[in-house]
């Protein structure tokens, strides 16, 4: 007992990381081999017999990407109140999904989102537009994930980012191509367990340290454990204003922009194909509803902990480095300085770190990601916790990448090849096509991960706006408005996605002007991240107006709508 305890203490961060990452990877590969897909049904929707809890866990892992795990708490800790747009935006969408989409799409019982759009709007054009939108949304999203995998590998395993991306590609390729949706689902169940454990352990430790309360959600509203009787949030508000930042609990974005961004993220969440498709994998409508609730519950565990971590980390950081002599900073500071994630330039040459809001005087730049990655070290937690965070970050990035790759491969093999190019393709032929397009998608995603075009990072956040502007209105109207016809839906999707793309190119990427236009030129003061909500409204208006002047959908389509509104009798999902 003594010797084994000694061993555990003596193992360095590096060893722990290799052991934990190695073990989790072996687990994922084992699951993939055990659950490989044998038919298109298993490849696209895991055979349609996944239990609500397993589907909930898989959805949660699918949903929580490297961005949720690594970056979100950091972003919030620098944005304060404004960070709420991500918290509410990325969870509130599940209410829309559960109440307005999941049950009906499950009843409809097909493999993909373009399947629904194509059948409901009785048109190949609508299907092609939907495939096009699904590919734009998924590719922008997946490139960011592969980059995330590369970054996590490189920071923790000390290989370079490109080697990291290639390692990630091989792993994802292995279980996505072999297992399809079935393999991915069960791997994601394991990945959820790894990532939530890895996120909660350091959060609980730090909450105990700072406030004496083991529940982080309560801890960040508690008094500090130093006996001063000061509430943690009051202290952080004070520290922030002292250094010239906005009060932590107030934020600095305008109300209308916070509103618009939150709406775009919520609606975008509900319109993301890789999330929607998860609800095709359960047995019936009842399970689809329940599974959406479980997924959100499992997601909210992490999402309510993240803002607490933000507060702990920000307070710790300010207290440890602000106004301290550079010569005496802790070891982690120097270590992360090497990676370029912390940069200190002693502008006034006094050897003391000035961390203030004023850009001229500020001497410290900190990358968002530090807050989660270095948090265990900042709080001097044991080495195994640090290794655990690495395994968790990888689980988050890999599970999301795999889910997206499946959407891309099914869009190509099912929606394009089977439904449009070669309807006579055999079941086996389609399965081969699905696997080949998964391989193709991994290679393209890996390419973008290694050579990220400058705009990928900017565009990932906008994938939500694109989904909100294109799919959401078409699906909602398809279910709740029987009279909606193909002319209206197609025009709406095209206007929605194009207006979103144009706004993004003008105000986010600055392609149309010499310099990026200033905030003051934004329409109604709404940022490109929030414009998805305006584009969505445009989509609704255009769809309904065009519909008024064009013929009603044929009777058999109206019957489909009647039918999906009744929950009973949802058979297995099929491709026919």
């Amino acid at each position, binding site marked *: 007992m003594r010797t084994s305890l000694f061993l555990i203490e003596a193992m360095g961060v590096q060893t722990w990381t290799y052991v934990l990452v190695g073990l989790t990877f072996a687990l994922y590969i084992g699951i993939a081999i055990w659950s490989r897909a044998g038919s298109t049904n298993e490849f696209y929707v895991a055979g349609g017999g996944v239990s609500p809890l397993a589907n909930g866990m898989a959805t949660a892992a699918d949903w929580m990407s490297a961005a949720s795990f690594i970056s979100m708490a950091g972003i*919030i800790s620098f944005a304060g*109140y404004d*960070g*709420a747009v991500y*918290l*509410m935006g990325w*969870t*509130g969408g*599940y*209410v829309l999904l*559960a*109440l*307005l989409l999941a*049950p009906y799409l499950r009843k409809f019982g097909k493999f993909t989102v373009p399947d629904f759009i194509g059948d409901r709007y009785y048109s190949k054009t609508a299907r092609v537009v939907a495939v096009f939108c699904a590919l734009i949304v998924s590719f922008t999203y997946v490139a960011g994930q592969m980059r995330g995998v590369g970054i996590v590998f490189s920071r923790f395993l000390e290989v370079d980012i490109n080697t990291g991306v290639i390692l990630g590609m091989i792993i994802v390729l292995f279980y996505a191509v072999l297992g399809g949706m079935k393999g991915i689902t069960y791997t994601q169940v394991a990945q959820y367990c790894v990532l939530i454990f890895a996120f909660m352990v350091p959060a609980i430790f730090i909450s105990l340290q700072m406030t004496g309360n083991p529940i982080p*959600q309560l801890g*960040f*509203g*508690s*008094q500090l454990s130093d006996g001063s009787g000061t*509430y*943690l*949030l*009051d202290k952080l508000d004070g520290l922030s204003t002292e250094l010239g930042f906005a009060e932590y*609990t*107030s934020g600095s974005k305008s*109300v209308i922009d*916070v*509103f618009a961004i*939150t*709406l775009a993220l919520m609606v975008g969440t509900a319109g993301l194909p890789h999330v929607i498709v998860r609800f095709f994998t359960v047995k*019936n*409508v*009842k399970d689809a*509803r*329940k599974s*959406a*609730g479980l997924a*959100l*519950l499992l997601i*909210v565990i992490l*999402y*309510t902990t993240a*803002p607490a971590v933000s507060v702990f980390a920000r307070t710790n950081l300010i207290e440890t480095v602000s106004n301290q002599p550079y010569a005496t900073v802790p070891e982690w500071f120097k270590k992360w300085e090497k990676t370029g994630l912390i940069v200190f330039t002693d502008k006034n040459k006094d050897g003391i770190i000035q961390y203030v809001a004023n850009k001229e005087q500020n001497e410290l730049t900190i990358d968002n990601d530090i807050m989660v990655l270095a948090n265990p070290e900042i709080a001097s937690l044991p080495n195994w916790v640090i290794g655990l965070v690495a395994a968790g970050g990888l689980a988050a990035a890999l599970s999301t990448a795999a889910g997206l790759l499946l959407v891309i491969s099914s869009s190509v093999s099912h929606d394009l090849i089977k439904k449009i190019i070669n309807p006579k393709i055999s079941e086996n032929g389609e399965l081969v096509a699905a696997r080949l397009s998964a391989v193709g998608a991994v290679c393209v995603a890996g390419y973008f991960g290694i050579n990220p075009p400058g705009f990928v990072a900017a565009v990932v956040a906008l994938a939500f706006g694109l989904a909100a502007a294109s799919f959401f209105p078409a699906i909602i109207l398809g279910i709740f408005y029987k009279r909606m016809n193909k002319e209206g839906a197609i025009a709406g999707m095209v206007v929605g996605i194009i207006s979103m793309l144009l706004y993004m190119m003008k105000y986010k990427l600055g392609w149309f002007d010499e310099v990026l236009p200033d905030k003051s030129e934004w329409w109604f003061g709404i940022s490109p991240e929030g414009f998805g909500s305006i584009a969505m409204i445009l989509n609704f208006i255009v769809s309904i107006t065009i519909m008024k002047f064009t013929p009603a959908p044929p009777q058999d389509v109206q019957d489909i709508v*009647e039918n999906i*509104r*009744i*929950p*009973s*009798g*949802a058979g297995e999902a099929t491709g026919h």
Partner: protein
Amino acid sequence: MTEQEKATAYWKENIKYLIILLTIWFLVSYGAGILFKDALDTIKIAGFKLGFWFAQQGSMYVFVILIFVYVRIMNKLDKKYGYED
């Protein structure tokens, strides 16, 4: 009731519940967390200003509860109309 009438009645009831649940969804997030945040921030519970708490904690708890309430209501409704599988 004919099949058609039954389906219409079921759908109407469903829409009624959706409106109620989505109103709550809107009020806790866009209402308490954004539009009325400043007013609610004058109220403090433990270390939390109430508006801030709704934006970063409360709204998310309500979202989860809303979905489970919806699941319950719909299971009952399905049974009432004989639509359960």
